[in-house]
């Protein structure tokens, strides 16, 4: 039974799905937790598709629908490029091209304390990670990775930023390395930051 259900699901993985397609039949799977990403919905016993796109699966149990558009829908653990809009006492307001402005807590930096709060001017470009992205709420960001280290996150200086579709930014981030970046690297050395929200620096 499990093979049958995963078989039917596997048929659709990486395929183009349309709203209304049934992806998984939960009645045939027992004691399994499945994580649903964007574009999927639980309809009683059945998981159906809400948004047209490609069905993706990542081990161990996450399914989601991927499509390319100009809009960005924030999801947790996404690395995005944000623009500082305003600063409050306890967090910065950062625009990440989503439906709502995101909050970046003032302390969400490596070694961040009340004493060394960074100062960002309006219009500063930041590479940040989305921590929480619940629908209806303002997303929360962080300039550290899950373990608390700064990694590559932080403010991006100089350079130029342009906007693109979410599909293009995913392609630029794909592994193996996107051929465009390969060819560009042969001609000149550069540094690039790609946000899943459709911004490239």
């Amino acid at each position, binding site marked *: 039974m499990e093979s049958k259900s995963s078989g039917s699901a596997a048929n659709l993985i990486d395929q183009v799905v349309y709203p209304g397609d049934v992806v998984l039949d939960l009645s045939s799977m027992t004691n399994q937790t499945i994580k649903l990403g964007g574009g999927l919905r639980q309809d009683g016993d059945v998981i159906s598709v809400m948004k047209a796109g490609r069905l993706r699966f990542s081990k161990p149990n996450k399914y989601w629908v991927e499509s390319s558009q100009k809009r960005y829908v924030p999801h947790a653990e996404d690395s995005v490029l944000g623009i500082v809009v305003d600063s409050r006492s306890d967090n910065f307001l950062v625009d990440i091209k*989503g439906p709502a402005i995101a909050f970046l807590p003032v302390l969400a930096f490596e070694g961040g304390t009340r004493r060394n709060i960074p100062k960002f001017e309006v*219009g500063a470009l930041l590479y940040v990670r989305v921590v929480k992205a619940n629908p209806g709420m303002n997303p929360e960001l962080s300039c550290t990775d899950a373990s608390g280290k700064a990694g590559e996150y932080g403010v991006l200086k100089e350079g130029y930023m342009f906007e693109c579709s979410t599909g293009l930014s995913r392609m630029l981030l794909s592994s193996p390395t996107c051929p465009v970046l390969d060819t560009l690297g042969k001609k000149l050395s550069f540094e690039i930051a790609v946000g899943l929200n459709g911004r490239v620096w």
Partner: protein
Amino acid sequence: MEQRLANSWRLTANEKKFIESALLSELRVDGRGPLDYRKLNIKFGKDDGSVEVQLGETRVMSYVSAQLVQPYRDRPNEGTLSIFTEFSPMADPSFEPGRPGESAVELGRIIDRGLRESRAIDTESLCILSAKLVWAIRVDIHILDNAGNLVDAANIAALASLLTFRRPECSLGGEDGQQVVVHPPEVREPLPLIIHHLPVAVTFGYFSNENLVVLDPTYHEEAVMTGRMTATLNANGDVCAIQKPGGQEISQRVIMHCLRLAHVKAGDMTAKIKDAVEKHNTERALQKIKRHSSSVAVDVCGTTARLGGKQNQSDGDKEGSRLDQLKLKDETKAMECDATSSAQVQSNKKDESLKNFIGGPSSWDPYSECVNSDLLKASLASRGQSTPSKQKESRRETKPEEPQKEIKIDSAPMDTALTSEQSNEGKTLKDAVKPKHKRKKKGSSNNGN
């Protein structure tokens, strides 16, 4: 508040620095030089006076309409011209529906001043009955997509729509000559507006470095630039209007330099607008011939331009005396080539009625050519319509005159059918003596092709 913040576009400090430093090396983000315009595309709609202009990514639509109204008390002999602008919210997230904002009003005023102060539109010809009835011309400009430099695009749209607008012809009637009869377009050909010259707006962007001047700024450049100036000039070099709404102070030397630049660009732009309008008028005339075989659309603007072209290029082809006849034939020829090619079943969009129409001329008298050309001249001069007989006769004349390659270039693709005919025929009027054979020959040669 936060919800509204989320939807607007923001400028990053990185972009600002990048655009300014790239300009120092004369580079713009989209690859243009600092004084290059983006690609201009003028599309005409079905109605006379409806135009959509695309300048790069910026899209503007313009529509001209006319109404009979009472004139102003202090100008009883002049018609009126008014410009209305609408900044559609689909053009830019910062545009709000409802009352026009400051930039919308400013745009309308710049275009209005360029046309009104320079008297580009002849308002006295819009008067029907002094102090009672005049035409009020209304230009509606809709911004469809804002990608920078709305003023220039909107101005081009307004000019193109005014050039292609046709107002109904009216005549005075009644016992005391006071009754105005407005003829619908089916009865009498509508008339174009009298436009003396084309005031073209050229917008410059200034940056914090005094030496940086940019023409036709894009959306990002507009956000970065510190000052702006719009100069409205015509191709003769007359300055019709200048607008510099605050911003960075500019030295006199830079302003004079910009005005000289604007003069050059205005000349280019005028040529482009006129070309596009001419092409449209030709197509329009051809369409009219297709639809109404009984009334001829004689479009003077299009034909006069072609006349000029013929004059330049017809050296050594014909005797000088026949040059006039040729020109006239050329005008109608464009309309007719449509008919002829349909007869030869070459093009794909002709209707059956034209075939019957072509059957008529075979019995015409070819020697009446001279008379016909004079009549045609007279009819063209008065801008009235020519009668069907005139048109048929002129068609007869033009058949042997096809050799004009210039016509081919001007008119629509159906001319390709005629080129074969041109190469086949000799280039004298004597060929017109045997029109029947000619046409059949052409028919066969075309069908063979």
